[in-house]
């Protein structure tokens, strides 16, 4: 059995943020530990933030948006998760 900890995608809403934003990923044995790890890795445990964690293989992602023959998406690729979306300035204190 593969004993690698699953990968989780981390979404954080800052104190004054309006919505949860993807901030990155990490590994954890389960959702509870993923939340704790997210606090340590991505928020340095700033208070007043809300954290969502989603196991990466539970996320379905759209295919790349470019249409037409030039940028043909590959149908066969396994799911690969997006990481490190920008965090807006208003939640900068995370």
């Amino acid at each position, binding site marked *: 059995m593969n*004993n*690698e*900890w699953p*990968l989780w995608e981390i979404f954080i809403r800052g104190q004054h943020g309006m919505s949860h934003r993807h901030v*990155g*990923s*990490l*590994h954890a*044995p*389960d959702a509870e*530990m993923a939340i704790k790890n997210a606090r340590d*890795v991505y928020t340095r445990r700033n208070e007043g933030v809300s954290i969502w964690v989603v196991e990466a293989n539970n996320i379905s*992602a759209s*295919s*790349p948006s470019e249409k037409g*023959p*030039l*940028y*043909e*998406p*590959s149908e066969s*690729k*396994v799911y*690969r*998760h*997006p*990481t*490190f*979306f*920008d965090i807006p300035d208003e939640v900068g204190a995370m």
Partner: protein
Amino acid sequence: MYAQMVKSAGTGVKPREEMTEQERAFQDKIDADIKIEPKDWMPDDYRATLIRQIGQHAHSEIVGQLPEGNWITRAPTLERKAILLAKVQDEAGHGLYLYCAAETLGVSRDEITEMLLDGRMKYSSIFNYPTLNWADIGAVGWLVDGAAIMNQVPLQRTSFGPYSRAMIRICKEESFHQRQGYDAIRKMAEGTPEQRKMAQDAMNRLWYPSLMMFGPSDKDSVHSAQSMAWKIKINTNDELRQKFVDQTVPQAEYLGLSIPDPDLKWNEERGHYDYTDPDWSEFFDVIKGNGPCNVDRLAARNKAWDDGKWVRDGLLAHARKKRAKQMAAE
């Protein structure tokens, strides 16, 4: 620069007319500064080269924890201890972001870690040098992080989206590292005669290894040409090294530290400093595993990994039990 001599997986830049339609479209996208995202089509060589480069970079962050970590328990004040610990913790964070970026290319963190541990993948030569006195901690921040930043700032514009975003995040923290390093060595350079001696000693030992971080001249390298065409390498090694020397010399002068290169001098015509190249035979020795600390560094990483196995397995086993119980209850 934490990725040295990354060989591109291909044989060099393909002439446009030899590219398939898909390859041409891919190259057009890169030329138009459109980011490549994980689910986009990409040449196998691009993927393989990126895994090597991002992996080597991530490994460097993790192995790089060791030389600086060497001084955490001996930091001379509570504040210095906290700053150093926070800095080495940041390195772990950078490694984590980069491993995540590599995972988007289809290689798991455990897989890529194993490749470091059994020697299939490399990390930067610089971390095979020892930290011998407290001023080394300042010098590492100032020179080593300074050299790393030279490469990382342009890499924020690299073509692969997750790598680019990781670099943006990392660069924000790295400039803090360089500043704290300079602050620490400045305190030494302006301190007692013994402290000045430590600072100069650190400079003497770390100057050439810092220059080596950029790798040997690659202006004629087919691998570099391909990587540059793919925008996963932005400048040549020599360009970055020159930029680093030009930036560092006045900083050293301000501290009153001498750079261990008698031939270092300003070249009015070029508008740059002339400097002596590092001893590349020493560099190749280090790369081959014969640096002062190679064996110890890899042994330390292997020990952490092996000793940690029962912890990783234990926590995962508990998570599975808990899940099974929840499922049974539902």
